[in-house]
């Protein structure tokens, strides 16, 4: 290989390595989902740890978040279609107060528990400082995927379907 070509290949490899190294590892991935217990909008307790054995889609959203409004009908549909296979969706609203959340979730016929988030919950899940943010939690209670910002719906759905196919050995 000529020296110039070798130098170019080496430079490209170094650049690729440095770019990969610059990507911070997601500290939440493949770790147990941070535990929390909250009361949902229907005054029912939601304990994230109690969903062990199910695949949990935990979504942080808000009524003023436009991309979140796009996701919501899909989540309602998935809860209906995949619920019997072990999916549980949980919504965490980052709105400042619950009245617009109640109104919107009723209007959209949301069929999964929605609770009000706060800074403690946001920090536990890696600081929620932009929406939407969605986590997929596997049947063992570990975070398997973390989607930040607008994400293509089929990407989330296929990751969720993969997790639903995994079963805990008896």
């Amino acid at each position, binding site marked *: 290989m000529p020296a110039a070509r070798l130098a170019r290949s080496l430079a490209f490899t170094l650049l690729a390595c440095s770019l990969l190294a610059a990507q911070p590892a997601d500290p939440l991935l493949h770790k147990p989902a941070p535990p929390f217990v909250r009361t949902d909008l229907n005054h029912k307790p939601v304990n994230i740890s109690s969903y062990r054995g199910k695949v949990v889609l935990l979504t942080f959203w808000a009524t003023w978040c436009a991309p979140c409004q796009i996701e919501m009908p899909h989540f309602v549909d998935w809860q209906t279609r995949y619920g019997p296979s072990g999916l549980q969706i949980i919504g965490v609203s980052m709105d400042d107060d619950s009245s617009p959340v109640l109104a919107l979730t009723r209007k959209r016929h949301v069929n999964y528990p929605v609770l009000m988030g706060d*800074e403690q919950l946001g920090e536990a899940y890696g600081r929620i400082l932009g929406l939407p943010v969605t986590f997929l939690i596997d049947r063992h209670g570990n975070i398997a995927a973390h989607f930040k910002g607008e994400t293509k719906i089929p990407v989330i759905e296929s990751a969720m379907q993969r997790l639903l196919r995994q079963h805990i050995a008896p």
Partner: protein
Amino acid sequence: MRLPALLLVLAVACPRLIPAQSSSPLSATTVPTAQLIQPADLAKLLDQPNAPIVLQVGSHVFFNEAHIPNSQYAGPGSQPAGIALLEKTVSALPKDKFLVLYCGCCPWNRCPNVGPAYKRLHDLGFTNVKVVYFASNFGDDWVSKGYPTQK
């Protein structure tokens, strides 16, 4: 390469460099480009003697999680209560005071808060108002970049 072609190439290659357009009349894209300030430029100003007054016009929950040092919570610009709090916050300030608004709740062209807040200050006669351009959100474009935060 001619300028329009160059802009088109930049928009396709680096969409975050050029604010996206939106049809919403009060979306962040209604803020004039000349009134935008980049996060890096604001960070340099924070320690200066003539530092601007920085107002967060988004979610209070986010503000409690992390905010720009010495910034004040001024209410979500998309809601009447937020605009009322913004008006109260600036009521005693001279109209030429250097003010910087930010939200960062959502990608720039999806933010419902900074457009109405900017418009209200403009309508009130404030002449020196900038808005921080967060392409993705406050977490990605400020906190993750290592700029200072406060709780």
